[in-house]
């Protein structure tokens, strides 16, 4: 019945499930793939699979269904591309001895960044959050705070120096 709030086949329920789990699923997949586009793709496919099986999946088990499907999709892709990937990594190492383009981002590292932002001195934090969270340009921040662009840039610069010291070398 349409009024059944536990019926995943109901578009409204499906959308609610999406908003409840999509972010977590994408996060989970990013740490597995280290690739935002791939994480996004697999996340979408997992939800399409859920819709395909909406009549067979128990509402209470939706989350574990999504994560299991996502994990399997990831493993399939990985199996399929293993040879290619190994080859690529080998080439990357050869051509880019000096600057490692491939920096792993682990869950713990993101926590460290968030902690470091939280512990910035007030002035630096204010500028930093306006720039990163609100996506404001240095010039816009300068106008809002009534300071020079140079001053904004200095605060940003200093914020990064503090963060690097806090997080330590990687």
């Amino acid at each position, binding site marked *: 019945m349409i*009024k059944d709030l536990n019926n995943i086949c*109901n578009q409204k329920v499906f959308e609610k499930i999406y908003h409840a789990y*999509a972010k977590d699923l994408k996060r989970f997949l990013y740490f597995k793939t280290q690739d935002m586009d791939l994480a996004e793709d697999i996340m979408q496919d997992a939800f*399409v699979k859920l819709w395909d099986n909406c009549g067979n999946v128990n509402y209470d088990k939706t989350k574990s269904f999504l994560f299991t499907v996502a994990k399997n999709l990831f493993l399939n892709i990985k199996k399929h591309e293993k040879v290619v990937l190994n080859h690529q990594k080998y080439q990357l190492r050869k051509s880019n001895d000096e600057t*490692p383009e491939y920096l792993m*981002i682990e869950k713990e590292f*993101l926590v460290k960044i968030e902690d470091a932002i939280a512990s910035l001195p007030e002035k630096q934090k204010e500028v930093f959050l306006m720039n*990163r969270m609100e996506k404001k340009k*240095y010039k816009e921040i300068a106008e809002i705070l009534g300071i020079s662009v140079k001053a904004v840039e*200095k605060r940003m610069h200093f914020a990064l120096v503090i963060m690097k010291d806090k997080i330590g070398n990687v």
Partner: protein
Amino acid sequence: MKEIKNNNTENESFLATWLAGDISDKELKNLVSEADFIAYKKIKKGLLVLDSFEQPLSGSFVKIQDKIVQKKERKQKRQNLGWGMSIAASLLVLFGLFSMFNNSEIIIGTANAEQKTIFLLDGSEVVLNAKSEISYYKEEWNANRVVKLTGEAFFKVKKGSTFTVKTAYGDVMVLGTQFNVNAINDYFQVTCFEGKVKVINNQKDYILNPTNSYRKINGNAFEEFNTSTPLPTWINGESNFKSVPLKYVIFAIEKQYNIEIDANNINGSQIFTGSFSHNNLEIALASVFRTMNINYNKKEKGIYILE
């Protein structure tokens, strides 16, 4: 320690310009130590990852829906199988028949006491009430959005070319909107919930705006009235009637509860205004017949007699 660093970087802002993308990694590399360079690069990457985690995901949801729509045709066949062998069997016969013309008619229906949400090829949504049926031609769909309806359904139409609902009692045409059509047993009612709806009956057009309803019962003159609910009430488990001959209310109860009601001893043309709920038969019967001073008795399982 911090004091010193502050002094050191007092006149510096290159990290800010680098983060904004105004100086390149290569230039940064010349300004800081190797270890610091990698540390800054990783922080920048981490910040970008955090950014994308925070991004709203509604865009992705649209893409998921696109993927679902692409797979729709296959899905609808599968859904049909769930609705009982009779429908599956008739479907098979129809597929067989229409494959000869290379244009397959998709038929989707509900049994008594059943409701179903269906997505059409363009992503439009149809909620079918109990004992109702829609059909359309898959191949013609792109050129011609036409759905045939018997029974009652609520439509949420995606914007696009004209969308037509054909019924035995008249046609309903819209561009992109939400509306309800009930066309059963000489009872024809259209309610517009969003946008504009055109009803064509006996070669005459009627335009409905949101909350307007059009109704024509058993060949009588049509009536227009307003509704106040944002959605048809049956979607939320309640059937609502406004000055409707009782026999149509009885049809509706029979459909919703999959029962038979013997109304030979009462006058079916009495006018009823009110509603009944879909989840408790006793309460539903009481709320309709008690208010009309009609006695009802259970004759046997699923069969009731009115006096």
